């Protein structure tokens, strides 16, 4: 017997394991090939509809059967058939099944039926199991079994059948009715135990009645659902916020009516997290120490939220129900790390210690995914709703909303380490959430903040020489939500990345940039502005043309957010997201003074621009006084998105901004 020479570097093995393993074949196929089942053969006969357009694949069948037992435990079987139409359509044939320690995968079979009818059954070596997330700060026991089907060439139909025991503590499923490619036939069948009941809710799809195929067997069938393809559209809401889906719920949570369903979900969350936030003596002591001497509620909240933001690092290993249930506050406090539920739990705990009530608020990290008319657990993030006392009017506590029961709630995300209490970042503004407040649990719309919740005041002072060189200093003062973004940039980037980012941004306006340096000024207090000083020079900023010198008075900065298809006057179907990077209201001002070279006078300046709409306004002007050319503008946004019907107004606004940003002044030598 000979010894093996092992792989010499263990860490190197794992660095590329996921990709490498998918393509490796070191285990022989064990099973004997079986013929494709009748349902797969039938599905493969489905003709490709004429209206699939340039789809790369078409889903011929997607059929779910959810069988619920007396204990409300469910088993889900899925049958899926996809025809590959183009080489890039192969990705839709890579079926996958999610499983976990408490979500058992019973089986996963697949057959490929080639265009000529030849059948190929997937065998052991065509599957790989991979971890679900694999991020450094988000790890999980959850796994995916992924198929790389044999014979997956254009024309072939890949069919997959899986059966999974759903998590015993879950009693709802979201049925994704729409995909980036078209569906031909799809169905969901729910087999309930005797006396079982259900609730269904629909998002972006008109509700349909189920067929009762047998006692307590309900079947919803849908045909010919078009693709939702946003690939070439810009500034749309997220795909998940526009795609059709249905949520089916069984068991105790299957309440009738949207309000009752939201209440049932909130009660379930409350029950799941019961006693998790109970403060330990250490938490009590820490909270009391933090608020000692605080003059008002804002200061108390600010100190406690800052503590969580600064001291509780994001890290989680999700195990089974740990995807929904937080750790105990005492453990979180001791380890100083946790995920969004944990951070919310510790915050609720610390607030409880100082006599302030707070609640779990289930949200999605993308606006629009939670649909108030379609109760579900589709959210993917947990934040906090802090109950404000009656009469609390502190203007710094901006992100407040009135619940249906009359409580005033301040929305706060403790996982967001940069946004101070009182504000919320753009993605949350205007989005729906689910409040867990016992019998008062409800769906809640989070507020869109006023424009003064985010701002940038930029001032620049420059000197231009006759050879076209522009030199000067710029000071950016970021406030509110914009200051939070800058803090995030500072945290995420190292020194080189930061300089590169700034340099890249500046050089898009100053092509021959000589970046002389920058300084950030910030304090630990999140509610204070962040100031950025930039020192620049551009040896070819102004261009000589005979006796003329041409320059752009708008030295740096980019307010234009043109949406190509809207600018091309194409019909718009979906809302347009607005509000600079970060997608939020704000007020952004630039003011530049350029001292002209001796002997030159201003011959032409760009025309002023004034545009006002109900969602935004833009004003700019260029003036000459003595030997100084002065440019200023003010861009104010009031919304986070506008309906498609306002595309023409949006186009007008963006055209004006684009025109202004390119505007040139002409200097003439006297």
């Amino acid at each position, binding site marked *: *017997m*000979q*010894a*093996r*020479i*092992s792989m*010499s*570097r*263990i860490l190197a*093995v*794992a660095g590329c*394991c996921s990709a490498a*393993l998918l*393509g*490796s074949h*070191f*285990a022989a*196929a064990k099973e004997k*090939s079986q013929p494709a089942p009748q349902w797969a053969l039938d599905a493969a006969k489905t003709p490709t509809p004429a209206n699939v357009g340039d789809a790369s694949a078409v889903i011929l069948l997607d059929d779910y059967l959810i069988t619920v037992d007396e204990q409300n435990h469910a088993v889900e079987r899925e049958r899926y058939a996809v025809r590959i139409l183009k*080489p*890039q359509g192969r990705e839709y044939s890579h079926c996958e099944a999610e499983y976990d320690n408490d979500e058992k995968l019973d089986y996963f079979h697949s057959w490929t039926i080639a265009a000529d009818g030849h059948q*190929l059954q997937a065998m052991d*070596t*065509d599957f*790989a*199991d991979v*971890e679900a997330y*694999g991020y*450094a700060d988000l*790890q999980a*026991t959850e796994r995916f079994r992924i198929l790389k089907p*044999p014979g997956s*060439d254009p024309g072939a139909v890949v069919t997959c059948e899986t059966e999974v025991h759903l998590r015993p503590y879950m009693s709802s499923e979201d049925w994704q009715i729409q995909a980036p490619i078209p569906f031909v036939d799809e169905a969901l069948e729910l087999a309930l135990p005797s006396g079982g009941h259900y609730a269904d809710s629909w998002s972006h799809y008109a509700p349909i009645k189920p067929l009762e195929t047998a006692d307590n067997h309900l079947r919803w069938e849908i045909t010919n659902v078009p693709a939702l393809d946003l690939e*070439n559209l810009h500034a749309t809401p997220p795909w998940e916020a526009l795609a059709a889906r249905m949520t089916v719920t069984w068991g105790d949570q299957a309440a009738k009516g949207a309000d009752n369903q939201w209440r049932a979900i909130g009660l379930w969350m409350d029950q799941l997290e019961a006693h998790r936030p109970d403060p330990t003596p250490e938490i009590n002591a820490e909270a009391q120490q933090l608020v000692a001497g605080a003059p008002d509620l804002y200061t108390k909240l600010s100190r406690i939220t800052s503590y969580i933001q600064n001291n509780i*690092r994001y890290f989680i290993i999700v195990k089974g129900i740990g995807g929904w249930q937080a750790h105990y506050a005492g453990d979180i406090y001791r*380890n*100083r*790390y946790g995920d969004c539920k944990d951070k919310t739990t510790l915050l609720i705990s610390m607030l409880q210690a100082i006599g302030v009530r707070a609640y779990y608020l289930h949200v999605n990290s993308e606006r629009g995914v939670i649909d108030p008319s379609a109760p579900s657990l589709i959210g993917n993030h947990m934040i906090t709703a802090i109950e404000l006392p009656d009469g609390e009017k502190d203007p710094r506590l901006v992100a407040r909303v009135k619940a249906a029961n009359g409580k005033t709630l301040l929305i706060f995300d403790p996982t967001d*380490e940069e946004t101070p209490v009182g504000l919320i970042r753009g993605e949350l503004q205007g989005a729906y959430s689910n409040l867990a407040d016992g019998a008062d649990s409800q769906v809640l719309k989070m507020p869109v903040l006023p424009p003064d919740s985010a701002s940038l005041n930029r001032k620049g002072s420059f000197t231009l020489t006759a050879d076209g060189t522009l030199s000067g200093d710029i000071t950016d003062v970021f406030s509110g939500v914009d200051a939070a973004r800058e803090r995030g940039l500072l*945290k*995420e980037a*190292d*020194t*080189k990345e*930061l300089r590169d980012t700034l340099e890249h941004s500046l*050089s898009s306006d100053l*092509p*021959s*940039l000589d970046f002389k340096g920058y300084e950030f000024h910030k304090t630990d207090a999140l509610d204070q502005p962040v100031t950025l000083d930039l020192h620049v020079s551009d040896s070819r900023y102004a261009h*000589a*043309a005979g006796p003329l010198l041409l320059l*752009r008075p708008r030295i740096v900065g980019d307010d234009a957010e043109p949406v190509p298809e809207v600018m*091309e006057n194409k019909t718009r179907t979906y809302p347009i997201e607005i509000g600079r990077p970060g997608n939020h209201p704000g007020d952004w001002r630039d003011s530049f003074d350029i001292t002209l070279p001796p002997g030159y006078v201003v011959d032409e300046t*760009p*025309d002023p621009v004034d545009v006002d709409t109900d969602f935004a306004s833009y004003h700019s002007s260029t003036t000459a006084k003595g030997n100084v050319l002065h440019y200023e503008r003010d861009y104010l946004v009031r919304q986070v998105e506008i309906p498609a019907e306002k595309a023409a107004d949006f186009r007008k606004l963006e*055209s*004006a901004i*684009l*025109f202004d940003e390119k505007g*040139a002044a002409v200097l003439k030598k006297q």
Partner: protein
Amino acid sequence: MSKSILLRGAALIFAALSPVVLCAQFQQPSEEELKMTSDPKAPGADAVYFEINEVADDPMHYQSTYARIKVLTEKGKERATVELPYLKGTYKVADIKGRTIHPDGTIIPLTVKPEDLMVAKTGERQIEKKVFSLPSVEVGSVLEYSYHIRYDDDEYSSPEWEIQRKYFVHKAHYQFTPFKSFAPEGTPDTATSRYLVDEYGRTVNSLIWWNRLPPGVKMQTSVNGSYSVDVTDIPAIPDEEYMPPIESVLYRLFFYYKAASDPGKFWPAEGKLWSKDVDKFAEPSKKIHDAVGGLTAPTDSDLDKAKKLYDAVEALDNTDYSRKKSESEMKELKIKEAKHAEDTWAQKSGSSEDIAMLYLAMLRAAGLTAYAVKVVDRDRGLFDPQYLRLHQLDSTLVILSTGGKQILLDPGEKMCPFQTASWRHSDAGGLGQGADGVSFSITPMLQYKDNVTQRLGDVYLDAHGEVTGHINIVMTGQRALHWRQRALEEDDAELKKQFDREELERIVPTGVEAHVDHFLSMNDPYTNLMAVVNLKGTLGTATPKRLILPGFFFETSSHVPFVNEEKRLEPVDMHYGERVSDDVTYHLPDGTTTEGVPQDANIGWPAHALLVTKSVTRPGQIEIGQTLSVAFTFAKPDEYQDLRGFYQKVAAADQEQLVLTLAPSAQAGPVGVAH
């Protein structure tokens, strides 16, 4: 001595030693380390390693790692989470210890049990990982952890030391104790028996190491039979644009067991075996002869034969560009892995490697003199003869020897024209067969004149700067090859979108929409590839009296490399030289007069690069041309300032403006806002 005896001996040694002596001990940080808020040796770093200690002991089937890290920024906290992947069943990660030390000296030990998670599994092979996160980490904390890896008795392992890390390393110690038979010369009581064999059945008798170490650092040997390296002040992994492959610049030291010990003996022996394998695979069997007979005519010249055969193998299904059949699929279809060139020909399908070898077989069957050459893909690495591993070579090409010339052919590269090679295989080192046997070989460098892109456009302007028009982008050489290969993976509609996004958005001015209408000659590698592009939008700036346009239509708003990077540590690797030639005719609004046009220019970096610009004004038209020739592929760091100076001038020239005075009738009223 048999393996079992050796292992028994190893087990006894292991039992006799306390683990305490095998791993570094946690240590009290100094006051200076605790209070440190930044590191002058690593300005701006998010974290730095104070110390790394890696010890590998193969007789004891054991490796230990110790690390001490200073967190300097919020981002540096990411070092607190440690993942330790391992092969399940063979390796075990054990004795994980860790602690966090706050700047005030408070120590918080790791008490949470590390989790064991699956990373990936296929068939019998499963990669797991141990994951732990050090507690209570804050900016300023010192993180400290250690762990052991143990592996099965029938496993041999040799370490690969990644000496250069993501963050600056103040001090690191690496140590490896191999089996005594592999110990350094002079080690007493060196055993000589073992039973390790390689894939050719040769007895593995040597421990070899390859290293790229910082200047002045050398590996040390000790009388107790171990090898060690001590380093200090190792900079973080470099990150510069247009760097050579990262694998070729990092400080590293790899150990491995082999059947030869020095380059003088290794490569001839390994090359001989490789060449034997090649000749066996590429044997011109009867079936190959028959195929060649059907593809060529006796009257064909050598070059004609070679081209006909080249086109025949190029036409086969190259699974590196389509889809490799899975094991189950091959079984079902009763296809066997190609063992000989005739198998590939029979299946009409194969990998790039298979197809290159088939071509070699066909050339030989045609009576031509042809050799295989195996090189390192230059996109991945550079050949290092001191690194005694054949596996570093990953691409097979063919040399045709005819008429006193050696012609390099790249049949495994789909859509690559005859007598052309991919840049990844140009100027690439490796092994080559030849009349005198196997020797080191380097493939020719591509000529920049063979990689040409021409962008020819007609742009029609109105008095408000609104434009329509079209451009034809004509590509030869590497850019054409790139897009032809992309076309193998996407359909036409998707390819157009990708061309719009990756090429056109980068080169057209802001405000102008450019979309490919169609491609010409996408499937014919012997013809220029052309993208026919339509233009629409707003160009430049309109003032009440003037229209100010970018002098050069293309790439005026794109990133010019090197301009903002003052210093350079690593060489520059442009991949290949090329020439990009633009010629755009602006068709002007009626009555327009010209106030300023871009100056004709001739900017050069002698023997390396040249930019030539020229404008011609005609009634109602201005034609502006620009040609950038980059005739170099590599530049050393000491050439960087010349290179940068050239690109700074290119960037400046790109900003030249074209100033037009509008006809008086067109000057009325403000423009733009009301559009």
